[in-house]
């Protein structure tokens, strides 16, 4: 499961010096055992709900309500997944979410890299002041913009359209900050050579800066995609037609559609399917994700 990580180097020196006379390896071994015990117990709590979700998604409805419950299904019901796809619009919701998330992500990458480059490398009056002010906007809680933003979308006639989900989302102060921090560390010599050849600013941005910025682009892409994929409040306010619903909305609707006997086995199959893409994305890009958190949390 663990993806290889260069950023993680445990500080082991704590155990290296032991003035208490106890043998170094012995003390460490007991400590490790104890730590493992606590961490493993905690891990069960953390993955327990997922394990249960996965196991239930393969059960029959009868087995779900069986007492005491089984962790391993008596017989694997692959058909649950088929039923979910055939009898619900899950596939459609996934497609909708994919479209919205990818559009926003591409937009954010473009606008943030342009702005980040400008703040990092181009000289213009008031640059650093504008940058600081722009950073300040990150402190504005999104919840207070809910109503005026909705009214704005209404005047644009964007209610129940994807414009409302995509257009306001394609700029990001945080993304601009991330890009600027990275681009300031790119050696100037790289650009200078292109300048001498007479390249334009836009050309340098596209052929010199962007290619070397791949790590930060990956970081921003993962964060943005996951953020939009998980977003619930804004789509709930904007979208009306069920066929336009994003995955979180569709799943929430799916959950509340059965008032009496809830088909937990199907709901769990749908939930499993909704978690998989994001989990896969996270595991594949874990390194970049962690880098993004470290940049904001510790160097900001």
């Amino acid at each position, binding site marked *: *499961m663990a993806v290889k990580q260069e950023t*993680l*180097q*445990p*500080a*082991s*020196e704590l155990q*290296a010096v032991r003035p208490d006379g106890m043998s170094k390896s012995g003390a460490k071994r007991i400590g*490790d055992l104890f730590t*493992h015990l606590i*961490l493993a117990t905690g891990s069960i*709590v*953390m993955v327990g*709900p*997922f394990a*249960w*979700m996965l196991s239930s998604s393969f059960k029959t409805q009868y087995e779900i309500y069986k007492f005491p*419950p089984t962790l391993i299904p008596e017989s694997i019901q692959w058909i649950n997944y088929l039923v979910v796809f055939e009898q619900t619009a899950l596939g459609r919701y996934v497609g909708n979410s994919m479209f919205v998330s990818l559009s926003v992500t591409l937009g954010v990458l473009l606008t943030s890299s*342009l*702005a980040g*480059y400008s703040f990092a490398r*181009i*000289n*213009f*009056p008031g*640059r*650093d002041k*504008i940058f600081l002010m722009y950073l300040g906007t*990150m402190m*504005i*809680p999104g*919840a*207070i*913009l809910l*109503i005026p*933003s*909705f009214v*704005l979308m*209404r005047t644009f006639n964007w209610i129940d359209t994807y414009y409302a989900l995509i257009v306001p989302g394609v700029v990001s102060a945080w993304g601009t900050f991330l890009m600027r921090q990275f681009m*300031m560390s790119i050696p100037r010599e790289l650009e200078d050579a292109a300048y001498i050849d007479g390249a334009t*600013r836009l050309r340098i*941005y596209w052929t010199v800066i962007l290619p070397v910025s791949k790590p930060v682009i990956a970081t921003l892409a993962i964060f943005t995609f996951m953020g939009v*994929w998980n977003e*619930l409040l804004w789509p709930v*306010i904007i979208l009306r037609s069920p066929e336009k619903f994003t995955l*979180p909305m569709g*799943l*929430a609707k799916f*959950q509340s559609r059965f008032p009496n006997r809830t088909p937990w086995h199907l709901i*769990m199959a749908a*939930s499993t399917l*909704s978690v998989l893409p*994001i*989990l896969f994305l*996270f*595991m594949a890009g874990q390194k970049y994700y962690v880098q993004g958190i*470290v940049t904001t*949390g*510790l160097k*900001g």
Partner: protein
Amino acid sequence: MTVSAQVPAPSQPVAATPPRPRWSEMSGLARREAIEGYLFLLPNIIAFFVFLAGPMLAAVYFAFTNYDLTWPPRFTFLENFQVMFNNDLFWQVFGQTFYWAFGMVPATIVLALGLAMMINREMRGVLTYRLVYFIPHVTLSVAASIVWLWVYHPDVGFLNLLLSYVGIDGPQWLLNRRTAMPSLILMGWWKSIGFAMLIFLAGLQGIPAELYEAAVMDGANPRQRFWAITVPMLSPAIFFVMVTSIIGAFQGFDVFYLMTRGGPANATTTMVLHIYNNGFLYLKMGFASAMAMVLFATIMLFTLGQWLYARNWVHGFAD
């Protein structure tokens, strides 16, 4: 965002270029460059005015009006605030928002710090642990809510099943006014602990080992080392997590909307859900905006307070 760097990272100067001249003193070439600079910022500048500054001003205006979307906003001055402050439900919701935020944040920080220190050891499996503890944070809140709804289900739920094994007749969790909020907070810990842990882990790895070695030489015991080295060196990271988590917690919406709809008897209605209900269900846009202003002021006060107090405990807190 001015949490100063504690990690000896490659330093990034704030102003890498010499002071820029005034527009009138600039050469043609410099002007050309400046125009390019603004052009690169154009999408962000437009979006700033259209989607941020504009709505901000509108939000303030709406707060002083009566607005139902059908008729244009009617200016009512302080009426919304008068109604709000005389409304028991508002104060209940306000208090519950604090209950949620302070049930979530301090415990998450303490748990995450302990977790990060345990994981920050040279032993097998640390990467797996880190992944496992982080997974809930990246999970769709809807999927997480569905699973936890089931965990808390009074009859077939996992929690009451466990309790039944030790002979306890478990409560109705989300259906009981007293247990509903604590149940959501417990789930909140599960969901948010990984994020704080990841930041603390990165911070711990930036603490120079020599500090611990010197302390051991001086005969400091583990507890002294924790308070004298770990906490001060980690304080910028703790501060960052604290500020962002409080801001986030005050704006919590997903779990309340998905799991309880604010019930039972409004026992889990918090500010943003209340704003959503008033604005989008009852179409009281003006009243909801006024409430949003109160939420904004609350968040700003807390952030400012933490900022002012930070110089007393955050290591290297400059401004």
